């Protein structure tokens, strides 16, 4: 489905890896479809005790590959990216096994949005995280339902409205990151260790606990968030701001 998403299950851990390191794992609609498919099929198998989501190369994910939208006047691709992102966050949340995500180096915009679907996020202290898409006329509303069930509402508001990147250490302080390491390499090994540890725990209790947490903090407004982001796609403001960004390149 996509050469840029790789899935492998070993000893109870299903690893889903973004593999487009030359583009900092920038997301395409195909990658998001492959990612969702991997979570919904491989990761949901009974043999999967834990899921590890990671990216190849120096960082987890730089966000959407917006270069795909430059010659797409109808903005079909951007709409597909937003839909794919929402579907991936939901798939991780609905996955019966716990999902560990390694946000090493950077997790920006759509990349940071993936964190909202994961159960446990690991990052290094200097990683760059955030949702700076309002500067492009794009609304990160699609992420709001998930971010609001991760950090306090005040912090979610600040992160979605203020187009600033924060460090892994700052993200840890607000609870967006749960385990902090000094270096990106340590983040990768720590995330793998956590996934292996989870895979060794009794699966019935772990799955029941995750399902109960999903019930306690439902994301029933995920559709509304996606709709709010989609409503701006192709609008004047977004066209102008995106054109300005491409002109600067």
């Amino acid at each position, binding site marked *: 489905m996509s050469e840029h998403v790789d899935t492998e299950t070993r000893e109870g851990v299903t690893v889903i890896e973004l593999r487009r390191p030359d583009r900092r794992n920038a997301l395409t609609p195909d990658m998001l479809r492959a990612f969702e498919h991997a979570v919904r099929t491989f990761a949901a198998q009974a043999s999967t005790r834990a899921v590890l989501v990671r990216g190849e190369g120096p960082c987890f994910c730089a966000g959407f590959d917006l270069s795909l939208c430059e010659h797409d006047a109808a903005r079909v691709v951007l709409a597909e990216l937003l839909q794919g992102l929402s579907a991936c966050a939901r798939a991780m949340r609905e996955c019966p096994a716990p999902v560990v995500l390694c946000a090493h180096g950077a997790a920006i915009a759509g990349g940071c949005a993936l964190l909202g679907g994961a159960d446990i996020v690991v990052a290094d202290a200097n990683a760059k995280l955030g949702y700076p898409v309002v500067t492009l006329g794009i609304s990160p509303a699609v992420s709001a339902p998930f971010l609001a069930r*991760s*950090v306090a509402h005040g912090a979610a508001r600040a992160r979605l409205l203020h187009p600033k990147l924060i460090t892994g250490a700052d993200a840890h302080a607000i609870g967006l990151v749960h385990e902090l390491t000094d270096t990106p390499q340590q983040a990768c090994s720590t995330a793998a260790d956590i996934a292996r540890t989870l895979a060794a725990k009794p699966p019935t209790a772990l799955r029941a606990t995750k399902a109960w947490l999903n019930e306690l903090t439902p994301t029933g407004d995920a559709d509304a968030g996606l709709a709010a982001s989609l409503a701006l796609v192709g609008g004047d403001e977004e066209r102008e701001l995106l054109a300005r960004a491409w002109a600067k390149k």
Partner: protein
Amino acid sequence: MTTELATLDVQGRIARLTLNRPEARNALSIDLLSALRAHVEHLHTLSGEKDSPTVVVVTGAGKSFCAGMDLKAVLGDPAAPPKLLGSLAELCLRLRALPMVLVARVNGAAIGGGCGLTCVCDLSVTHADAKLGYPEVDLGVCPAVVAPWLVRKIGPGRARAVLLRGGVMSGRDAAAIGLVDEAVPWADDLDAAVDKIAARLAEAGPKALAATKGLLNTLDASLDEAMSRQGAELSAGVLADPDVRSGLAKRFK
């Protein structure tokens, strides 16, 4: 003469509710829960009376705050776990409904259901080396009764990470994620810190405290009985699984 499993001592505005089963690290048995419940109901009857307490310090006798549910005692009887979990769920609701401000004096280990009790309190203080956490998933048990209280205390994202990872953490780490409100550096400093908070609260307006607490309980749906019951049933359901029970029995050997 039998020792009381829980004691209540009222001194003016400040009451002290103590789990008193130190030989079992204050593990929550059905009897201990009912002893606590009786004291909580008594506190309810005091509320509204002139000069009634406005602060309740909740603590454990001996070295531990509370080692959690006494699962070992209920493994042999299939009817016991639902009763034990149901009692804890109800106790949590009745504790939270008290108009007094509850201050957990976490003198030592607060594990599983014991850590849950600290989250039901409005404030909690511990020392840096105390052990707190939820190792339920490590034992194959589902922490469904305490989960809603942890979500209210530290937010849904951190609660997810804490409950799914299991294990325990230090008082210092607990303070860093908001699981406790303060961790004093040394155990010897705990009483001074707790007494200071209690004394301060004892001077505050009882009506203002009760109204504020009541509103906060409404805002976070603290008194949702259906959710609480569902949590107890879910947790008991996992404990009814023969594999889970045999796994626990092996652990307790």
